[in-house]
């Protein structure tokens, strides 16, 4: 067992220059993010494709007319006008059609909120472990039903990458997982190779409402924050203990001459007890796991930014940040994304001040605006969400175009996931996650004609052979059309 655990710790963090200068072997730093359920994803069978004469939004601010884009070996190989048509490359005529990066949804509960869902049926409901307000030890990928039709519906809507998050009742909801929308046999077949896991956290009304109503802590916002700070203190101590242990053993191994009396005993000291809950929190503190925080109000968001400073970690994204527009400058300064809906407001007090211009104001402040779904309905229409938010910003007098708004569902969510060097952008070297739209993606009448994931045609509206259907929807008489 100990060997297994040491193998888990094998990942080494970068060492200080000072240590290197002294010619000493770097001492290992504990890694807490090992994935016991590794990805088995393989791209679908693919051929090289040249999409020609499209209107192209590159995801980072450019709009190109009559553009060609070459997908080769799963990567974007070239973008330009009148590209050469190499032999053996399939040409897709896209005159009148638009091309964007594959869309990215940073907030879904697909696979745990499985369709057809039954709200009050515990055997089919796995959004969160609900036994404690701190279930940081859980990983949502241990619960995912890969046959949820929500994945395929997202794919049909042009989404190529999505994150599944635990719910917002726990303060520490556990680890998230980043998936490709390829309908695999198991969640492992869908896991985005190399994507960092996230930790779902929640502040505000949901945790205190859930636990407080059961007579448990936290019953208040201050209780939530105290619970968080206590947990981070514990995680810091845990991380120190592990790093100290590794450094000591490493020292022994490095220089046998220093083995004095007791050296052997020290080397053979058993490792500290491993704690799955603290593993997750320590993995946040050392930057291996990204924090995705459910937080509506500007007050709560500001407190969370301060807590992140106190313990030295970064929040990747504030989700459902309905009041982000009130503190957009602080989000920009902290390099934290705000994932929002365009028009949700009113359903609870912390959502009362929702305005349609939220994403546009976050963007105007130089912060990272993201549109998210939280729903398999909205998850099919992310471009519609971005369009509504762009239109609101324009009404408020901001100079906003489609080329900017598309970033909110492509390159910005890629930043939130730490995948900005691989997806969310049409540029040579990026993964060939590409959508060919029937028209302007910001029109409600447009549809994703073709969706490529890693260069493979995963969905084609014109080809039934490329239209996956979930096991769960197969063979139901209610879905049959009359012959």
């Amino acid at each position, binding site marked *: 067992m100990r060997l297994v655990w040491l193998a888990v710790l094998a990942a080494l963090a970068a060492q200080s220059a000072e240590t290197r200068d002294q010619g000493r072997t770097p001492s290992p730093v504990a890694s807490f993010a090992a994935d016991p359920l590794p990805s088995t994803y393989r791209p679908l069978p693919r051929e090289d494709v040249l999409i020609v004469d499209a209107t192209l939004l590159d995801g980072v601010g450019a709009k190109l007319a009559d553009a060609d884009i070459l997908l080769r070996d799963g990567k974007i190989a070239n973008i330009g006008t009148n590209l050469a048509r190499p032999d053996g490359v399939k040409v897709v005529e896209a005159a009148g059609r638009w091309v964007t990066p594959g869309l990215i949804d940073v907030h879904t509960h697909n696979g745990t909120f499985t*369709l*057809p*869902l*039954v*709200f009050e049926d515990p055997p089919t409901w796995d959004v969160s472990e609900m036994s404690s307000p701190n279930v940081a030890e859980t990983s949502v990928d241990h619960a995912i039903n890969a046959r949820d*039709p*929500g994945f395929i*519906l997202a794919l049909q809507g042009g989404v190529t990458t999505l994150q599944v998050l635990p719910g917002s009742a726990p303060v520490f909801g556990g680890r998230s997982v980043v998936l490709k929308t390829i309908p695999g046999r198991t969640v492992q077949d869908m896991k985005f190779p190399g994507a960092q896991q996230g930790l779902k956290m929640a502040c505000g*009304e949901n945790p205190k409402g859930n636990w407080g109503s059961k007579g448990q802590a936290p019953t208040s916002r201050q209780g939530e924050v105290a619970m968080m700070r206590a947990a981070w203190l514990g995680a810091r101590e845990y991380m120190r203990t592990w790093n100290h242990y590794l450094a000591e053993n490493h020292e022994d191994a490095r220089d046998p001459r220093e083995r004095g009396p007791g050296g052997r005993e020290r080397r053979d000291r058993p490792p500290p007890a491993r704690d799955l809950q603290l593993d997750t929190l320590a993995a946040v503190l050392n930057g291996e796991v990204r924090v995705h925080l459910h937080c509506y109000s500007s007050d709560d968001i500001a407190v969370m930014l301060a807590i992140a400073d106190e313990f030295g970690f970064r929040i990747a994204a504030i989700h459902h940040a309905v009041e982000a*527009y*009130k503190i*957009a400058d602080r989000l920009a300064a902290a390099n934290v994304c705000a994932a929002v809906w365009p*028009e*949700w*407001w*009113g*359903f*609870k*007090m912390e959502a*009362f*001040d*929702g*305005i*349609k*211009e939220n994403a546009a*104001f976050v963007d*105007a*402040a130089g912060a990272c605006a993201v549109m998210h779904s939280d*729903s*398999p*309905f909205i998850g*099919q*229409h992310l471009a*519609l969400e971005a*369009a*509504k938010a*762009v*239109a609101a910003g*324009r*009404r*408020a*007098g*901001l100079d906003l175009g489609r080329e900017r708004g598309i970033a909110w569902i492509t390159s910005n969510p890629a930043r939130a996931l730490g995948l900005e060097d691989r997806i969310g952008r049409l540029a040579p070297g990026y993964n060939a996650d590409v959508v060919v739209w029937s028209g302007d993606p*910001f*029109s*409600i*009448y*447009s*549809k994703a004609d073709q969706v490529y994931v890693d260069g493979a045609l995963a969905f084609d509206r014109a080809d039934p052979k490329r239209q996956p259907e979930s096991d769960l*929807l197969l063979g*139901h008489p*209610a*879905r049959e059309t009359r012959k």
Partner: protein
Amino acid sequence: MSPRVAMAAAVLAMASLPVLGETIAIVDATVHTMTQEQPLRNATVLVRDGRIEGVGANLPVPSGARVIEGRGRIVTPAFMNSATQLGLTEVSSISAASDATVSSGQLGAAFDVRYALNPRSLAIRQARVDGLSRAIAYPGGSAGAPFAGLGALLHVARDEAVVEQPGIAMFAQVGGETSTAAGGSRSAQWQLIRNALEEARLQRGSARSSPRDSFLARIDLAALKPVAEGMLPLVVDADRESDIRQAIALARDRKVRIIVKGGVEAWRAAADLAAANIPVVLDPSINLPLYFDHLGARADNAALLHAAGVLIAFEVSSIHTTFNAGFALRDVAGLAVANGLAHRDALAAITVNPARIWKIEDRYGVIAAGREADLLVWDGDPFEPMSSLVAVLAQGREVDLTTRQILLRDRYLPGEKEQLPPAYRRSE
């Protein structure tokens, strides 16, 4: 005409007295009159004293009229949402600010939302600015399941008298998601509905009814009597085909006027719904099986129903039922068009069709002389998310488009570099 109906008609006549206002001419517009197949191009809509005086090309503009330059912009009737909880819910998470539903107490079918409706609701103001003329406010449930109680017709565009017609329909809920309150089976829901209508029928013309044989209280029977007599529609909130067919059977057996709400699998019974003259109020964006009763969900439900001759009207789901009752209608209508419904027919499902379903076509739903001037001016296709409303006319008067959301927007507008905190930024 029964005394009750006569009284209602009198109330309506009073409510629809002309409103004094300025004369407005919307010129050079593309006008979706909803009386013709195609919109009128380069047309003028003339509004006087709260009513439409005329619509057409080459209408003379009277001197003194205020002119709204259309510049080819689109004019439509203001919309109607056929199933909202406007005026009943201020904040859904706060029970003290929610009046849509009772789950205990004495009231079953008699539960009537009319006394709770709040014309000063923020959500109503928002809906008006988002283009709503009319809405049905429906009860979310009563202590006498499967009946939810009596809903009301709201005239959202009318500031002072939002409640236009209380008691416009009886609502009942049937299906797997609502059967618990009736004991756990939809069969019980149907038995209770049939029994209640039978009790109400037997009560008709007879003061004597044996309490021992009656499940229902006097007040609930009184509320159900006009339903049993075919005078008041029964809105059956159901999604599964089997329940929709039960509703059709009920209409046939009991001569009850049925409106189906929900109707996720209604496309499966489209021909029979059309034959029974039963309208369907649906959210056409529901294309996936959220519940088992939705297994047959299809994106082209609206298109299939319309093609079969069913009169359709639209509602919206989730939080939008209250908080974006106007705004979200655009999305769902657009998605219906994206999935096979003609644009004109989608527009009809939020204007003239609900006017017919709720029997207010004498005053609402089309742009024609004599009708109320609840009108919308758009800078593009109303269903496109990038389009915006540029003017809202309610009862012939241009509505101030400022809402609480706009005040918040202006307070936090980017580029404001004032020294004082936002709380000092007061609008004039």
